[in-house]
């Protein structure tokens, strides 16, 4: 019988337990405990299920990273609920002072800023609350333009972020302006979005942010991407493959992910940004719009939670690439 050593001149290593899949990609070994020949491969990114939220909701603020995320507020009925995700489970935390939906936020699970949205009664708000890891405190400073459905620099620290775009009532219109938070007050930046829009995906920081997709009121789905350099917005020649709004998003101007949303009906389409173009990658398992947006530092790591519909507690985690250990079957 031929042997690996005989064919290749090398021996297959014997291990008592499998190594970590990511460290073993491309390697072959013999597991002496399970008496199995194994190898590890690097595969495409994909979404996996995680434990559900405690409070079902959609259209809420979500920030942080996949192993330390914060979700706050949401619909229906202007929720005040706050939950923290540790990479496995959601835990209830102290509530916001004012219930709101269609809000956004930025920061981390221990220091975050929540802003804007729609309050009980249906009015737009510029209300701002800050999270210290335990409690929310209402800031005396409001947005200059009260609005809802805006996007945010989700990876910015809680003391230095921007929000952009959105929608406001009286009269109903999509918004193009950008406002910056310095930890104390909001100031309007001179650079406006080239395309006013609501419910787009966004991410990044106060000096390097992006927006993609969205809707121009009342009904014009967008696929355009714009990039913020700290001063002005420029329109990228690259567009989303699927025009849509109400998307989830993660990442920065050089590596980002847009997922879900609605293109007339809820979609599970996921697209990844490499700083130059959008590429369609593995779908969510469940089509959904109105997920919380903003958790994840890049296009390789994201959290999709909630749904502005039913079921609305579902959570999925995105990882790219996916490393898998396989067993060699010999017949």
């Amino acid at each position, binding site marked *: 019988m031929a042997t690996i050593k005989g064919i290749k001149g090398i021996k297959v290593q014997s291990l008592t337990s499998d190594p970590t899949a990511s460290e073993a990609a491309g390697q072959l070994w013999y597991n002496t405990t399970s008496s199995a020949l194994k190898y590890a491969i690097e*595969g*495409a*990114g*994909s*979404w*996996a*299920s*995680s*434990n*559900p939220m405690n409070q079902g909701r959609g259209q809420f603020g979500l920030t942080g990273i996949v192993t330390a995320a914060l979700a706050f507020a949401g619909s*229906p009925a202007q929720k005040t609920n706050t939950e923290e995700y540790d990479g*496995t*489970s959601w835990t209830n935390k102290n509530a916001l002072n004012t219930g709101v939906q269609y809000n956004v936020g930025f920061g981390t699970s221990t220091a975050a800023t929540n802003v804007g949205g729609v309050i009980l009664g*249906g009015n737009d708000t510029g209300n701002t609350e800050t999270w210290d890891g335990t409690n929310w405190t209402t800031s005396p400073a409001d947005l200059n333009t009260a609005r809802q459905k805006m996007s945010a620099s989700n990876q910015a620290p809680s003391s230095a972020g921007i929000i952009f775009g959105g929608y406001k009532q009286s009269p109903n219109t999509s918004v193009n302006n950008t406002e910056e938070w310095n930890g104390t007050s909001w100031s309007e930046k001179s650079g406006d979005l080239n395309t006013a829009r609501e419910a787009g995906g966004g991410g990044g920081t106060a000096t390097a942010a992006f927006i993609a997709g969205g809707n121009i009121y009342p009904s014009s789905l967008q696929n355009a991407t714009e990039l913020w350099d700290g001063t002005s917005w420029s329109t990228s020649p690259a567009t989303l493959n699927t025009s849509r709004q109400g998307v989830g998003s993660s990442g920065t101007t050089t590596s980002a992910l847009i997922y879900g949303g*609605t293109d*007339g*009906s809820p979609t*599970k389409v996921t697209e990844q940004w490499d700083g130059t173009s959008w590429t369609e990658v*593995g*779908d969510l*398992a*469940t089509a959904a719009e109105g997920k919380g947006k903003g958790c994840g530092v890049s296009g390789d790591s994201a959290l999709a939670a909630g749904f*502005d*519909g*039913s*079921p609305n507690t*579902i*959570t999925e985690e995105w*990882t790219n690439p*996916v490393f*898998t250990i396989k067993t060699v079957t010999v017949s």
Partner: protein
Amino acid sequence: MANTYCTAINWGKGFFTHSERNAFYLEGHVGDVWVVGNNAAGISWINKVSGTAKTKAEAQAIVDGKVEESQAHWDAQDADYQARHARPEKYTLA
């Protein structure tokens, strides 16, 4: 047949993994209905989650019923809600 159908309750972490998503087609729907790629990995997953096998017609009927419930909910809402949310529509499973 490209896909097979089952109902199963999503228990959260580990219900479907990254590696499983790369091994077979999987699509979740209302009513705990799952459209599953009809290959060895897909069948193995149905067994893992103790899925209850359904024909496509049975799965479609469950989804249709849930959509009808959502439509009734939407119809009962005020104009503000209806302006913010599209009325759910029936669709055909893959």
